[in-house]
């Protein structure tokens, strides 16, 4: 593959507290805000607490999930005093860091998240050919010894992309688990701090003209979600994620493998025809969204050298 020349990544945004109970990002953003920029940094970084009211209350959101408010429709909807807090806030963030899909948007937006699922570190984004994001992933994989790093792709067009990271010209959610909501675990905080630092190091090197060799990155593309089995009348869940699947994010799930253990004692198995990679297994915030786990296809993507 030919080397690709790309514009400098001169403006970066690091956002935490998009969900107010995902504490590693919240504490990391607070620490970064304490260390005031002195103007000599090679890259301009804006650090933002995305949902300060939710962070203050230590809840995921106050009225509606902020990280679903960044579709083109949501960003252009008229807002008033009676609009949900997060709808107003998403438009404020779009004005500050975007506007999405315009030349004024920040070059890279890194949105910090935690999950109760055993995902390790994931960079979650909407493109499987964004060389900047893919190279940052490759860099983190090479440098982070004790944390698995993976690239997760949601194949959704930009207009319908609903999360904060879609506001930047390049962007991803940096998602690290497992961590309960409302808790900060030092190992998770340190991994997030290291991930952000390595991202900044890569950007500085890239901007100063370093050539980064191409190669191959495994990309996990989301295929579908699976809900819990539920009672047909009450909609109450009737099973838990099976102990054989619990905590096995990114371990291949084969047709016939156990998926749920019903309270009645019955085991429900994966009935799909294709072996897929499960992730976000038993994320606490997804019960209300009807998602017990997500399933992805893995493929190797070739990335060019960039400079």
């Amino acid at each position: 593959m030919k080397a690709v020349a790309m514009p400098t990544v001169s403006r970066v945004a690091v956002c935490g507290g998009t969900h107010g109970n995902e504490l590693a990002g919240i504490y990391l953003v607070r620490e970064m805000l304490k260390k005031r920029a002195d103007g000599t940094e090679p890259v301009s970084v804006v650090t933002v607490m995305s949902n300060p009211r939710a962070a203050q209350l230590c809840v995921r959101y106050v009225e509606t999930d902020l990280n679903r408010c960044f579709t083109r429709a949501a960003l252009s909807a008229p807002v008033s005093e009676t609009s949900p807090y997060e709808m107003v806030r998403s438009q404020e963030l779009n004005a500050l860091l975007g506007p999405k899909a315009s030349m004024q948007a920040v070059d890279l937006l890194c949105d910090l998240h935690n999950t109760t699922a055993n995902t390790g570190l994931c960079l979650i984004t909407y493109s499987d050919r964004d060389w900047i994001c893919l190279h940052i992933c490759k860099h983190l994989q090479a440098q982070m010894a004790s944390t698995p790093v993976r690239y997760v792709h949601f194949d959704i067009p930009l207009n319908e992309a609903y999360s904060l990271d879609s506001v930047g010209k390049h962007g991803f959610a940096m998602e690290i688990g497992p961590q309960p909501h409302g808790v900060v675990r030092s190992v998770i905080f340190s991994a997030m701090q290291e991930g952000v630092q390595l991202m900044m190091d890569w950007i500085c090197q890239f901007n100063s003209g370093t050539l980064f060799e191409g190669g191959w990155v495994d990309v996990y593309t989301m295929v579908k979600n699976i809900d819990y089995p539920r009672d047909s009348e009450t909609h109450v869940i009737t099973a838990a994620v099976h102990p054989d699947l619990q905590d096995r994010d990114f371990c291949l799930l084969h047709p016939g493998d156990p998926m749920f253990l019903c309270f009645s004692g019955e085991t429900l198995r994966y009935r799909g025809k294709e072996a897929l990679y499960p992730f976000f297994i038993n994320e606490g915030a997804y019960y209300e969204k009807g998602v017990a786990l997500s399933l992805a296809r893995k493929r190797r993507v070739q990335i060019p050298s960039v400079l």
Partner: protein
Amino acid sequence: MSSRTNISCLQEAKRVAIFGGTHGNEMSGITLVNMWIQNSAEIERNGLVIKPFISNPRAVEKCTRYIDTDLNRAFTPENLSAPDVEGLPYEVQRAKEMNRMFGPKGSSDAYDAIFDLHNTTSNMGSTLILESSTDLFNLQMVHYIKKAMAPHTCSVLLNEHPQLKYSTTRSVAKHPIGLEVGPQPQGVLRSNVFEFMRTILKHALDFIELFNSGVEFPPCTVDVFRVQERMDYPRDTNGNITAMVHPHLQDCDWEPLNRGDPMFLTFDGRTVLYEGANTVYPTFINEAAYYEKQQAFMTTCREILAANAIRKACK
């Protein structure tokens, strides 16, 4: 009472309640109680009235710990005797209502035993929580449960501390028992945690049924961890935490913590050491709900409690 063989004759335990959802985001108990309200076959026992009950339905509905105030701190004498006026916090109203249904606390009409089902984000495994070192019925019950659950460990936490003891939902009963199983994030149901709690309850009800049928339980000893002290996070002048539980302490509930051992890691990478004179056994390490209660973990000391033989009192 026979003084020669020192057997304590205790009243039959006829009325038992199982509380889930005292905290609305602790999913094992909520799921079990809802299941048993639908179909109680699994919890039925001869001669026993067993009531599964959702303590805080509004909090359960919102999947949050509490609405106005922590229900599991609300059963104070002041709250229970507060007049019925408008504007009382939801949980205080609820405490009064539950005291009428399952109490009154301290009276002979109160339920005999109440199991209060909880989860924690701490790595406590299966823990049974006692509020008295002299409740022979409870000591014999936890001894029975521990034996039945072996080789799976059940730790016993004793909170008899004059300042740190709190007015729990279950304290309405003559014999209150807390079940605390973790680690499990709030709002999440983990299969293994759910099944451990279910099995512990099965053994607890078996014990009560056996006791009521006249079985004599010989003298026994119970290893417990007695609550000593609450340790908060280091905080700045604004009250924000400045450090996290150290990686060497994280998940090490019930393991000895000695002077000089790492305790906290500040956000800028500095280690804070434990400076207490004696070895302690920390628990409730990094429980999500305790950040606002100024508690990073609790220290305990090990103790062995002895219990007389017990038998149901003859009429």
